């Protein structure tokens, strides 16, 4: 079960945040800052997972972005690759996605994310299927 997913930049600014489980605002702020801090301070040699309170954090760093995912009872490697695939999707939608793309098109990033993760479980099957709904909407408007 995926609990939450975050996209943050190198400075720790949250670019995308999606909770799949309702948390109170204070709790969420605390959790986010603790998790982001930990993720950004880990060295490259260390592995991409660690446990934080009851959830396991899986993260994946890209050049200047970091995708963070909190899960319970999931295969960490599969989640790590899911983060990869999410970035791939963004890459093919935006053509070499940059941080600015994400900031300026947060809604669209959310919409793509909603095709990949549905209610906290993995719904991804292929890149095309993840992108079609948004492309249809774009074409329609």
């Amino acid at each position, binding site marked *: 079960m995926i609990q939450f997913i975050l996209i943050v930049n190198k400075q720790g600014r949250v670019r995308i945040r999606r909770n799949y489980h*309702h948390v109170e605002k204070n709790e969420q702020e605390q959790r986010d800052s603790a998790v982001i801090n930990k993720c950004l301070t880990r060295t490259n040699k260390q*592995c991409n997972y660690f446990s934080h309170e009851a959830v396991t954090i899986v993260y994946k760093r890209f050049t200047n972005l970091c995708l963070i995912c909190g899960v319970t009872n999931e295969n960490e490697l599969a989640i790590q690759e899911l983060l990869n695939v999410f970035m791939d999707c963004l890459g093919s939608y935006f053509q070499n996605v940059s941080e600015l793309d994400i900031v*300026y098109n947060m809604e669209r990033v959310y919409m793509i994310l*909603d095709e990949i993760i549905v*209610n906290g479980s993995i*719904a991804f099957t292929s890149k095309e299927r993840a992108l079609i709904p948004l*492309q*249809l909407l774009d*074409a329609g408007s």
Partner: protein
Amino acid sequence: MSQIMEKTLASLPKLLTQSFSGGKNMKPTKGHPPSQEVQLFMKVVHQARSKSQEANIVQTELSSIQQKLKQSDLIASLGLVRSSFTKIIFCHLLNYDVSCAAIHAVNLAQQGHGYEKRLGYLLSCLLLHPQHEMVMLMMATLIRDLKSANMANNCIALMVAGELVGEDNVPSILPEVIKKLRHSHELVREKALHCLRAFYRSTPSLLQPYLPQLNTFLASRDPGILTAVTNLFLILCQENAARFVNLGPSFLHILDQINHRGFGTNYYYHMVPLPWLQVSLLKILGCLGSMDAALGKAIAPLLQVLIEKTKVSEPISLAVLVESVLTATQINADEELLHLCSRCIGKLLSSDASNGMKYQGLRLLISLSRVKPSFAAQHQMAVVECLMDEDPAIQIRTMHLLHAMANQANVKAVCARLLEQMNKTVDRQFFTEAVHMISDLAERLAVDIDWYLDTYLNILDQKLSSQTRDDLIDLVISRMEKVSVDNNSISSDSLQKLIAALLRVINNYDSGQSVILLSLQLFGVLAPILGEAFSSTSFLFSAETLVSRLVSEWQQTKVTIIKPLSPSCKEVDDSHFENLINIQCCCLDTISKLVLSGSLQVDCVKEWLQTHKCKLLKHPSVSCCLDELEELLQHPEHLLLTSQIVFHSQKTELDMSLSFLDKLVVQNLLHGGGILKPMYIRLSEEKASCQVVVPTSSNPLDFPESGFSPLQSSAGENGNSTSLVSSGMTSSSLRTKNKWRDEEDEDEEHFLIVGGSDDESQRKHEEIAQELFAGLGEVGLTKVIGKVSKHPSKNNTKKWHNMWDDDDDQNHEHCITSSLGLHPFGICKKAQSFSRWHDEDVENGNLSCSLNDDSGLGFISSKSETVLSPLAPVSRLAESPMCNSFDSAHEDVASDTNVLYRSCPGAYAESTGYNQPVLSIYSEGFADFNLEKLNYGMTNPASASASTIDALTDSDPEGADS
């Protein structure tokens, strides 16, 4: 491109654009940059110099957005709506409160079309949650969109419904969602399945009638539907695997199809087809395979293929590999497959592997060593290397592994490692986990009592943060209590350490009241055993500070609480007060015990009492304790005698076979008296499932053997040389379940030494490995440490003590059928009550006694003393829900006793010349007097006065005259 994919794509776009085609032909878009205004706003916010400035900018912007959205028509001004919503999402990400925008989001979802509708739904999802009141407003919109002929609207509505519709609203929307299961298009069916999964999580009961329909989806050829339905079944199987075992072959077939390239290349990711679906399927198969051996056999060959063909180069294929190995460890796989798994783990753990791989390898090794501990030994050097790794995540994982593979041979080394790691870590979570792991290991596998106590004292010494501190100390002390009270062979050295630690806890200002109470009680029981060897005056000193501190605390709370006199405050107040009384009583009690044991000077105590009497509360229980103590101090001439009776009871000789009463029993039987079944047998007979053999022998000493033969034989299967008298530790370890226990196989505990190493390079590592992997060799099962023989009873009295203890423990076990999951912290809470009950006894005059001065032999009982004496394991009563029925069952025995004594005033305490309060103190020395003996028609040892026997026969209607 596969047929399915083509079909999907072909039917998709017709609704919105005729010419659009997705898939690989799609045009790359370079996003849609927002308007200049939005960009400016973001820039300004980012450049804000301080947090307050940023907050200012955001607040002004939000209120102006609010204003604009209110005034304008949402549909007419699309540009405004889009830019406003982008800004709102942006502010939401910065953790500002944007709940005021929720209503606009709901409106937009209702009125908008296409992208705007999606935007409205998106913002609603971000701002609302199932319990939010505004979800009600969305229900009509959702249902309308579900009914709409527009497929895109259907999909969005299904997705949002899964996210936002909570328990209360599911019934109103469920029929529409179910209809969508038969929609002509795969995408809608897929979304409907996702939605049902969300509904199942919130209201499982409502969905039960629709579950059989789901089976048909397993035959679908669409990967999206398969993914959705597999995820749904994953939840179902994890809840109730047995119900879905018959679907096992279907899942197996799907997995087989995926691996035989049954789906198009679009669904490949790094050359692996549908990897996430495979992972889910493997999880389900693991669940089902553990339930059904035949299915497990069918799964095994596929797993073998999956494991063998996987190259460890791609992370995603590694994910499938890891899941396959995990599944293999769950399905009772044969030796060959397990060896393959072990080789796989070896690769993952090899020194040139990345840390991520090591992490996964450790995870697999944990689950593999649960199936067969000896496999862990094959990777010992790798594990030791992981132990030295700099990554805390790896270290913690390794600790979990060590815990999983601990046995009696290596438990000391493992615990030492855990303690060391505990000292280093700053992670609160791990710290708590480590305490639980250590205490579990210590309790389950401890080989000698000194080490056991040492380990616990080590935990107590840790610098704990105040939050977890009380809980942990509570746990630790209650565990120590169980062992130290049950056990008579603790060396005085470790006992002294233990007492010193208890004193530290008592003196610590941060200790919670329950912790103080518990340690006081334990102190009271243990300190007298030590006698003069321990400077008891230091206790007087700490008792003094404790009493005065508590009183001042009490007064403070009283002042603050008096003002708002709400009922809840009063409740808090009351419980606080009760605790205070308990602690004070306990203090006085302990002092009395110390005086009795001769470790406190009477003059000393008198002096102390005079100065601190005023600080004690005016409450019946406290003054009762005080009276007891004063009474005791006034008769110092009795002290010598009582101390002999109580604390040096090994000098006395008791006829434990009660042979002197045989005649009486035989007479009774001859006169047609029925054989009386002991309490525990009556109890266990009520629990038919327990199937305890009913003893038929009339010899009272026979029943423990015959009565517990089932337990013993099962212990024998484990190779454990259980004898009749087994120490409390064995039984308590069987009985107590905590979060670590459930996962362990009992049999694993009995492996013993034979560890070998094959690497000469690093001697240090080797040493560690040898320590840690002792007992995990293939030979295994060589010798079992009979805990019983380790603590041979010193004499008859001790044996007597142990035997009855054990009876009760085992009795409990049978009654509970040892299936109760007990919370580790739940143990000691009720234990506190014993002193209070004890006090009540004194007040009610329930105490009865007959004492023979000449032989120095005492035989004392009181109604609840038999059940609740402090020398008996206190926790025994508190641990199980059974204690109520157990208690009440004792009650009728006890009432028999009362009748008995009512008819023979000669046996009352007064006749001995002792005062009741004093008696209540040393009656605790005879903790294990068991009332069940009375039911056999026996009350007293040989020295009992004739009047008592007369009384007994009188009170027994079927009894023979003596």
